[in-house]
């Protein structure tokens, strides 16, 4: 599969900027994010913690309080810029067109209501049509219909013993079950886009595998596009067709998975790959010298240059453009006109 798809993208993010106003001043967390997502595509969004992966997701979903986070740019979904929508308008998209699951599944289930209570409410919100259908088919009450649908959705994600589960509370189930349940609730409105924010990081490896398989199946069956946010390149490799590497609020390189691993272009990507497999927040820093830049006064030009072995004079001055190579999109001065040779020479 190549970056240049014939079909048009389901979600298109153009120059997305998010600025946080804190006691510490204004922080530019997202500094112009660009990427597009195609139906049934699974896109990995990788990068060190604090590079703005989650913020990207949440700004797309408009989950951040306005007074804290100012957003600019475009998040296009079939011709509508989601950033222009009010919270109210946005709600008609959430869960129906675009949905999200979070890192800690248990914490993201309301602890004082039964799972059933919560999923039923979502069924009522998103599946009005089905409810009437089921009612007419089985001639049962609305309540019964809702129960049926809720159960069905839970079974779809491979949960067994559903009735009992619906009576359970968050603290009574395992992380794996919780995440399956969350997925069920997230996709029951058949969204076109599902954002999975570190969806498997908190789970142990075997469970991880199950969840990954589940997500794959989903995108295949319902041809849902998935943005899979992770700091674990290994998982990205297993799951995704496309990988976007983020660094300090920018996407520095996008490429088909195989391509990226075979031939990473951006120095940062290379650094990351060197760190695989035991890449993780703590050890990550050891392989790329220096630390994540201080967002209060980010480095001029290319935000990576202080840590870049190949940094050139212009990196300090100019913000690198997004360069399209034959298979990659990369955001580095090494690859804009005139410097290609040099780059190839090095790689």
């Amino acid at each position, binding site marked *: 599969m190549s970056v240049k798809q014939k079909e048009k993208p389901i979600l298109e993010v153009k120059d997305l900027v998010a600025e946080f106003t804190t*006691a*510490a*001043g204004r922080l530019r967390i997202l500094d112009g994010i660009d990427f597009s997502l195609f139906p049934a595509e699974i896109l990995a969004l990788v990068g060190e913690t604090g590079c703005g992966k989650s913020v990207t997701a949440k700004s797309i979903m408009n989950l951040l309080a306005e007074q804290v986070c100012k957003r600019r740019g475009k998040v296009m979904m079939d011709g509508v810029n989601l950033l222009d929508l009010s919270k109210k308008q946005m709600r008609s998209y959430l869960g129906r067109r675009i949905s999200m699951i979070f890192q800690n599944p248990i914490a993201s289930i309301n602890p004082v209501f039964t799972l059933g209570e919560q999923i039923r409410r979502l069924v009522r919100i998103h599946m009005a049509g089905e409810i009437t259908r089921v009612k007419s088919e089985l001639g049962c009450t609305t309540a019964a219909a809702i129960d049926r649908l809720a159960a069905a959705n839970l079974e779809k994600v491979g949960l067994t013993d559903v009735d009992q589960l619906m009576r359970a509370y968050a603290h009574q189930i395992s992380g794996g079950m919780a995440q399956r349940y969350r997925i069920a609730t997230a996709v029951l409105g058949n969204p076109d886009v599902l954002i999975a924010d570190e969806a498997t990081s908190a789970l142990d490896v075997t469970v991880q595998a199950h969840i990954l398989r589940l997500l794959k199946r989903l995108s295949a069956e319902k041809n849902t596009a998935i943005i899979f946010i992770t700091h674990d390149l290994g998982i990205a490799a297993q799951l995704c067709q496309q990988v976007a590497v983020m660094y300090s609020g920018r996407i520095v390189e996008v490429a088909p998975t195989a391509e990226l691993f075979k031939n990473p272009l951006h120095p940062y990507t290379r650094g990351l790959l060197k760190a695989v497999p035991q890449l993780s927040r703590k050890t990550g*820093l*050891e392989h790329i010298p220096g*630390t994540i830049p*201080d967002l209060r006064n980010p480095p001029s030009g290319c935000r990576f240059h202080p840590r870049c072995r190949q940094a050139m004079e212009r990196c300090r001055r100019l913000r690198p453009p997004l360069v399209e190579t034959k298979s990659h999109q990369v955001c580095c001065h090494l690859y804009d006109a005139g410097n290609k040779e040099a780059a190839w020479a090095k790689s």
Partner: protein
Amino acid sequence: MTMKDELKYKHLAEQAAREHRRERKIRTIAFLKRKSAAAALLVLVLITLAAVFAPLVAPYPDQGKGAVNLGERLQPLSGKHLLGTDTFGRDILSRLVYGARVSIFGGLFIVCAAALIGVPLGLWAGYSEGAPGVVISRIGEILISFPAVLIAIAITTVIGAGLTSAVIALIIPWWPWYARIIQGEVLRLKRMLFVEAAQMLGYGKSYILFRHLLPNIMRTVMVMMLLDFGPAIISIGLLGFLGLGTQPPNADWGLMVWEGAPNLMQQPWIAISPGAAMFILVMAFNIFGDNLQDYLDG
């Protein structure tokens, strides 16, 4: 670790430290920018100064200390007596100033003593679960469920009424709250940190516990003490009002309200000024405490 690594860690540590200091500076500024906090602080400072320098601040220090002045009984508010005089002709303002000493230093003493007793016990109870924990919390429960007024009476009948007995009577049911909170805090942190410790191998649990524990505890205690100041001051006032606190002719806001209450209809100022003073002081403490809490929670 190699030489190089060590250097790098050192560098990182310094950077982190710098970060931290900077964070705090910025937050402090933001904190003081809040009007309410600043106002509260101002009030507190003023009253405290007045209390400390009472002899200089009070227009009639001797009357503040209780000397009667029958020439000017029950004077209304005037230039000579800004807040009027009471039934012994004593200048209310002067008595307020001297009364502030009781409220502020009494309150301070209670809160500090309660913390000094409660925190260590709480730490002990929380750290060594089992017997000590149970015993301490049981004792605490009993003392808490014991009306302070009755304790005060008991003490008063033995060593006589006075600020001392009032303060003691209040400390006795006060410290258990600290013990309780700290115990809970310790337990919570233990759970939390042991989970982490399990993840990041190598570190000794107790090492982690104490490296993380004490700072956290100290913050909690600080906020608690600040928020307890108001209640402590009110409690002293309550006992004073019942005549179980400061003894006449000394000044104490609660006592002054009691002395003034009978004249509430003809000379309302006698009872209202000390009551209002108490209200303002406590309010200031509460507002300041709230702000500080937000500030510490970041």
